[in-house]
């Protein structure tokens, strides 16, 4: 079936929805999502969204900007970070006006709390900057934006999965999508496409991400010729529930929670004397693993304790409600009485599809726009997070840059006509599906997937070094070979999960390769990328963004793009 819209947005997380709202009523817009819109993983965001409102204590956007730059280990682009920090208060008031039910202060203003890496006066002490709704911040924003879209009459195509972008004469002019309920392929013809497909945590064994976080948009854009930026920077959140990876939000430490080792020691005091348990995530994840290596894991195992018991029932049950119930349900631990067992969990991709500050996908280091192609949200790299994202800056990124992408696309779509489609745009996808359906080989999808997840977790997670990275790359390349032979057991057309698992696995493997190659080449330690064989940050050689371009059967082409530095020269990063 064929459809025509001015704009197609792929993904209905906060980035996609915020862009859709910006497109307004005068631009015919379709939003595609592989899960029903409100099932998007933005709904899982717990702790909050950052903005220097100063509702609880003095705060300034300049401080927020500095914290974000320092948090990024100076790899974030400072012009983009300035936009993020300056625009944050407006973005929050706008959400509030749409109806987001934030928690309130006594005076009835939006309540704020402390979060990792957010400080006053350029690093002097923690500051309350995170606006929140209990530990359901993402959920209530997602609901509100979705409902706003319903009010605006935006067309949703729920349970439609993008398989490829349609590129004709260098322009992106639509999307081929698979309808889950019928197995039918749909061609969406548009003037521009926004990729807002979220993260790719499922590359790793332990993750806070959803099953749907398979990096589809990044991999599809990559195969369509868009370079991926800084993919080796993968955030491991320090406090996932032991063995499960389910997130215990940083809000728990923002409210006063403390990390303790086997001796009961508050070990973060030693590593970050000023802000202690509120140090940034890259640092705390490393510290936890260092404690474990030093034999300080609880009961000799690979986890530590997150202690909330001193906060009292009232705070735990009102401000940390959701995570309290996670701890009770999944870890069998009542945080009011006992500490929660935690370990680092793969959480967020700092890297993604390279874009400029208006959401335009860029094709090279000169920032030449890729006509018709836009990206926003976790799948994009502006870059505001650099080598390490601060908590509460992801949601902000989605809203600020989702809006800018929407605004830019609207302008663009009003200035041009439709580019004609190539003949039979869905044929390649149809052929691929037919081939998968006909293949009966014994190569198993879950087996390849779990081998990839294991090796990425063992060799490409928090600590990395050359030998491990080389071994991982070799294994990923072998898995990619075996992937060529997979077949599908389910031959049906209705909700064929087997087929979609196969397609998603291809995306995960592509991204695993790009992450590992980037990590192997980058011979320094910066933010979330820690090379044990190159423990220092090396601004001389590596103060630049990694760009990776797909080249068909050849090795991907890797090149570098300078970092934008405006106000803050790189300094040593201490907390």
């Amino acid at each position: 079936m064929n459809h025509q819209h001015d704009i197609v947005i792929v993904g209905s997380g906060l980035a996609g929805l915020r862009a859709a709202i910006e497109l307004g009523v005068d631009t015919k817009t379709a939003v595609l999502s592989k899960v029903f819109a409100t099932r998007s993983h933005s709904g899982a965001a717990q702790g909050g969204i950052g903005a220097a409102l100063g509702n609880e204590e003095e705060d300034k956007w300049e401080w927020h900007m500095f914290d974000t730059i320092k948090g990024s280990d100076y790899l974030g682009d400072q012009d983009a970070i300035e936009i993020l920090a300056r625009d944050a208060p407006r973005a929050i008031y706008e959400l509030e006006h749409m109806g987001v039910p934030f928690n309130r202060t006594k005076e009835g203003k939006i309540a704020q709390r402390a979060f990792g890496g957010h400080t006053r006066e350029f690093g002097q002490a923690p500051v309350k900057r995170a606006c929140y709704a209990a530990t359901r911040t993402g959920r209530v924003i997602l609901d509100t934006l979705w409902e706003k879209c319903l009010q605006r009459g935006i067309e949703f195509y729920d349970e439609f999965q993008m398989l490829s972008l349609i590129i004709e004469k260098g322009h992106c002019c639509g999307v081929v999508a698979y309808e889950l309920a019928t197995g039918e392929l749909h061609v969406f013809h548009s003037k521009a496409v926004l990729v807002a497909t979220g993260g790719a945590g499922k590359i790793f064994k332990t993750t806070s991400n959803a099953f749907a976080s398979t990096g589809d948009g990044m991999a599809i854009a990559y195969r369509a010729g868009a370079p991926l930026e800084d993919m080796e920077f993968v955030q491991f959140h320090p406090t996932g529930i032991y063995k499960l990876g389910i997130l215990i939000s940083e809000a728990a430490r923002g409210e006063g929670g403390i990390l303790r080792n086997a001796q009961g020691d508050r070990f973060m005091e030693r590593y970050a004397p000023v802000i202690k348990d509120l140090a940034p995530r890259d640092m705390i994840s490393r510290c936890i693993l260092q404690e474990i290596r030093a034999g300080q894991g609880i009961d000799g195992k690979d986890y530590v304790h997150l202690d909330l018991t001193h906060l009292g029932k009232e705070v735990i049950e009102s401000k940390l409600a959701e995570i309290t119930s996670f701890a009770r349900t999944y870890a069998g631990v009542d945080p009011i009485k006992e500490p929660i067992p935690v370990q680092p969990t793969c959480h967020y991709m700092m890297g993604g599809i390279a874009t400029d500050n208006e959401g335009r996908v860029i094709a090279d280091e000169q920032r030449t726009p890729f006509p018709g192609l836009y990206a926003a949200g976790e799948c994009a790299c502006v870059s505001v997070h650099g080598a390490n994202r601060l908590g509460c800056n992801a949601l902000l990124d989605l809203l600020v840059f989702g809006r800018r992408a929407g605004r830019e696309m609207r302008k663009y779509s009003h200035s041009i006509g439709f580019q004609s489609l190539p003949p039979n745009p869905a044929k390649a996808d149809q052929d691929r599906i037919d081939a998968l359906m006909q293949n009966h080989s014994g190569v198993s999808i879950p087996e390849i997937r779990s081998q990839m997840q294991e090796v990425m977790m063992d060799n490409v997670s928090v600590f990395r070094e050359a030998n491990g990275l080389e071994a991982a790359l070799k294994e990923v390349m072998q898995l990619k070979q075996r992937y060529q032979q997979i077949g599908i057991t389910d031959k049906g057309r209705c909700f064929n999960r087997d087929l979609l698992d196969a397609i998603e696995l291809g995306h995960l493997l592509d991204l695993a390769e790009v992450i590992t190659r980037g990590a192997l080449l980058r011979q320094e330690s910066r933010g979330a990328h820690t090379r044990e064989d190159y423990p220092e940050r090396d601004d001389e050689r590596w103060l630049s963004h990694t760009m990776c371009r797909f080249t068909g059967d050849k090795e991907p082409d890797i090149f570098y793009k300078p970092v934008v530095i405006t106000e803050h020269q790189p300094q040593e990063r201490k907390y």
Partner: protein
Amino acid sequence: MRCTFIIHRYDPAADTEPRYQEYSVDAEPTDKILDCLNKIRWEQDPTLTYRYSCAHGICGSDALMINGRIELACQKLVRDFKTGYNFVIEPLPLFNVIKDLIVDLNPFFNKHRYVRPYLITDEDMPTTEWLQTRENQEFVEPALRCILCASCTSACPINRANGNYLGPAALLRSFRYIFDSRDTATGSRLAQMDSEDGVWGCRSMWWCTDVCPKEIPVTKCLAQIKRLIKQEAKK
């Protein structure tokens, strides 16, 4: 330990009637029921189909029936059941089954749309935030926990008898906006609720409250709407 799963199967292309298929799977007491379904799908039968995404009770995808009770498959662990490691898994009642454990939720979301689930106001926007009291925010808070999993509506006996009844989930959404001090459409919202297909359809059977995986006191929230309608009528 070895668990037996008896699972509702239906493939519209092959089956005229639903059928039940038995699987045996090794599971830990701490495994989620969703983990068990995944194991079956990954290791034994890739044709088994159900919805899921977040795997920790926040996206609302995997409400279904476990041993005759409505639950989120990702929020119940094997050890939570005292049924000798035997499980019967069926789709949510009330809705039409599309395949295996997947139901058609369009009617559910249509009712959601009908209650105008967005803030309506005729006030001028302030330049910063609207002030809202803590008490007001906390009053609507229970409704904010809703993840649109459809458990309540699917459990509600009134819904089964009257297909036009809006059902607890949509009414709860209406509660959220009626009582939000920033919304000024209270009058027209109450008028919309004031009928047998609206809030008076609710006979306080508590089934919705009982099955809600987010422990929302749904019945009590609906009672607040009823009370407000009566209060306004007296004025």
